[in-house]
């Protein structure tokens, strides 16, 4: 089986995204989301490694009528492994996590992550009480992943095995305050200013 292309996977998940709220973990996952089109309702991280899933949880609890997708890498997810247990406590039905798993720390010299040594993140998520948690290896499975993210009952977890290639950097804005403000204005409109 040929490993998946991460940019193509993310592009197919984010095209015609309607009201989808996206949190992108630092590094390649954020570049992949930006390559699919910079968007005010994507909050890309440039730091705070390990926080992406928890930001997704806070957002999903605050916005139960919207779908929330966390796109992150295997290294970032490993650093926040406990957050899977925390999400398993509240189990928001509108939250999905997609881990783009290349089994490497792509930003620091392609060192192996724990998934290269066999850590099964999907099994961890399943054991933490996610409604569905699985490893995705084939292009033919992506349509079903997309359908689940937009309509399925969460929390959902997809560990997508992707190729270990270094792709051109496509960088989102770096200004965190700007990223926060534009997200809130796009989501909350006039209420964003009212706190």
């Amino acid at each position, binding site marked *: 089986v040929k490993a998946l292309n991460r940019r193509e996977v993310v592009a197919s998940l984010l095209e015609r995204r309607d009201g989808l709220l996206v949190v992108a973990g630092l590094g390649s996952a954020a570049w992949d989301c930006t390559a699919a089109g910079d968007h005010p309702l994507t909050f890309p991280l440039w730091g705070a*490694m390990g926080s992406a899933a928890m*930001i997704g949880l*806070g957002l999903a609890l605050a916005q139960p009528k919207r779908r929330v997708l966390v796109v992150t890498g295997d290294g970032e997810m490993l650093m926040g492994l406990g957050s899977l247990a925390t999400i398993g406590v509240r189990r928001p039905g509108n939250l999905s996590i997609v881990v783009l798993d290349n089994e490497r720390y792509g930003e620091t010299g392609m060192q192996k992550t724990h998934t290269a040594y066999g850590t099964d993140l999907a099994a961890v998520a399943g054991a933490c009480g996610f409604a569905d948690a699985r490893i995705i290896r084939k292009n033919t499975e992506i349509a079903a992943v997309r359908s689940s993210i937009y309509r399925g009952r969460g929390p959902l977890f997809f560990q997508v095995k992707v190729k270990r290639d270094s792709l051109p950097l496509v960088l989102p804005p770096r200004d965190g305050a700007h990223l926060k403000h534009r997200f809130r204005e796009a989501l909350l409109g006039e209420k964003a200013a009212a706190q």
Partner: protein
Amino acid sequence: VRERTSKTRPVEVIDWPAAIHNALKSQRVRQVSYVPDAGHKRLIELCHADRNMTTVPLTTEEEGIGLAAGAWLGGERAALLMQSSGVGNCVNALTLAATCGFPLLMLVTMRGEAGERNPWQVPMGQAVPEALRLGGVRTLRLGRAEEASAVANTAAKVAFEEQSAVALLISQQLIGVKSFEEKR
């Protein structure tokens, strides 16, 4: 609640956790995350019983900083409860508050202060104010029960109206000292 002192003079015992809970309510805090501490026992129970609050138990304190950022992106206010030893777990996640200006309201019950009987609590407890300052978090102190309402309201206003990071440090003197004696 009324108790009698040794001089049998009745004194009003102020329910400071209830005062903090009321402050969180009036400041429209909707998500309350925590790693438990004995000093937060009653406040955690009050938040669990409050139908307008979603409580989120955490595996480690830094998770609560991400949660609060996500809540704010979604238009809700959050508070994070922890013991002083958890402050050290938060340091890198504080980047979210520092770079993005996310509001952050931390309620920290202190260990390692006067009367501490566990020396392992002292290094982190003593470092808390400086560690928070280095991480860009303003600190407020709650030492007396009668100040709980005012100080908690102030802390929440600093966090949400000024969109800044603030930690309310609740003195060990107020909470009481862990005795390490068997409960009977």
